[in-house]
């Protein structure tokens, strides 16, 4: 049976993981490769590395980092952040990333999704959507949730699928950082109206939130950051918990 996936997300700046990620058994807590390898050992199913570097120099560092991750990590990983055009995708896949995640650039230029799918296949193309529930509907946001758009979540996700997205990574801005659970209702609507996998993001605070997002939210995968980085929840204990709840996970 296809397992539900648990995906830690690491923010990267200038080639290092950002802020306070603390694993005392690692020599360098800031090294994304060591942290990623540790998550792989703990049983993470995939990893996401988000480049939040702004500078051009930092970008080059990120491509070098992707090359190092690909050499050392034996589970799939997605990279995102700062992908504007096909050339960026080519560079990152060439360095060994399994998938790329596009967000603002796809909203600004939806053809980018089609181009990625046509050139590299749908399976490499994750479309990330940041959306906020406001005034009775889910509005998509640009630039890490700073700029609202005319786009609505469900229609945009559908269009992304039609253009060739291989997965949708949906972050609820209402739930992100609040640690009260995922946006299960919206996730369920997404999952039931699309036929590509849905990754849930935003709101993980307890192990029960993960079982809820897989049963009520019908998500195929769940992504979280701080709750894993600060060891509030261990991946092994989370999987044991989900298994006891009758949810298929890779042990």
């Amino acid at each position, binding site marked *: *049976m*296809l*397992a539900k*996936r648990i995906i830690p997300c690491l923010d990267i700046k200038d080639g290092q993981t950002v802020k306070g990620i603390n694993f005392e058994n690692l020599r360098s807590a800031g090294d994304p490769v060591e942290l990623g390898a540790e998550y*792989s050992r703990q049983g993470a*199913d995939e990893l996401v590395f988000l480049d939040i570097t702004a500078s051009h120099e930092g970008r080059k560092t990120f491509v070098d980092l992707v090359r190092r991750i*690909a*050499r*050392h990590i*034996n*589970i*799939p990983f997605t990279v995102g952040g700062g992908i504007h055009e096909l050339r960026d995708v080519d560079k990152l*896949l060439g360095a*060994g990333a*399994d998938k790329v995640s596009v967000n603002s650039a796809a909203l600004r230029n939806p053809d980018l999704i089609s181009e990625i799918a046509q050139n*590299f*296949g*749908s*399976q*490499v193309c994750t479309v990330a959507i940041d959306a906020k529930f406001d005034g009775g509907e889910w509005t998509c946001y640009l630039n890490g949730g700073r700029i609202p758009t005319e786009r609505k979540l469900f229609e945009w996700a559908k269009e992304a699928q039609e253009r060739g997205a*291989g*997965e949708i990574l949906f972050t609820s801005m209402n739930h992100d950082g609040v640690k009260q659970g995922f946006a299960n209702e919206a996730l369920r609507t997404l*999952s*039931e*109206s699309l*036929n*590509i*996998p849905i990754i849930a993001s935003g709101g993980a605070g307890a192990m029960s939130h993960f079982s809820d997002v897989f049963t009520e939210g*019908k998500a*195929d*995968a769940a992504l979280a950051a701080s709750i894993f980085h600060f060891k509030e929840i261990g991946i092994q204990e989370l999987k044991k918990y989900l298994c006891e709840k009758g949810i298929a996970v*890779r*042990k």
Partner: protein
Amino acid sequence: MNVVIIKYNAGNIFSVDNGLKRIGIEAEITGDADKIRAADKVIFPGVGEASTTMAYLHQSGLDKVIVDLRQPVFGICIGLQLMCAHSEEGNVDCLGIFEERVKKFVPNNPADKVPHMGWNTVQHNGNALFSGVSQEDYFYYVHSFFAEKGKNTIATTDYIQPYSAALQRDNFYAVQFHPEKSGAVGERILKNFIELIN
């Protein structure tokens, strides 16, 4: 040991090379027919579209080179599909090493997502390729097309319906999942191919 990875117009070839490096194997990535023929072990990996990759294999003459190999050959992902008789992807005749045919997943209900993406279990028949691998172990898959079950099937996975997770005929082995992305158990498969298959 001289291990060669076939270079052609498919993606993801370097990730198999990285996987081999992690188990201490230095492979040569080449499209050169003589080097491929001279290798002890040949790996035929990649992700891509069936009809465009087949067209390239025809044009380059690699199709005949692969079919005539007598040393152990290991197809991965699109490699497995191209070793089958025919693929619905681009409706193309493939290498015909396995008589099984490649079909597109057709979802039965909204819970059946395509591509089949993520970790799934494999029921194998004890073939040496799966030595030390339990029936509960998970492997990483990303694919929208699958090889049907047939007489060369040595392992199955159940997604929408049971299909060939692995095929074998004579010196030809192939898996649909990605051993190079399947953690420690995936590395075991790569090791088995290198060490146990002769």
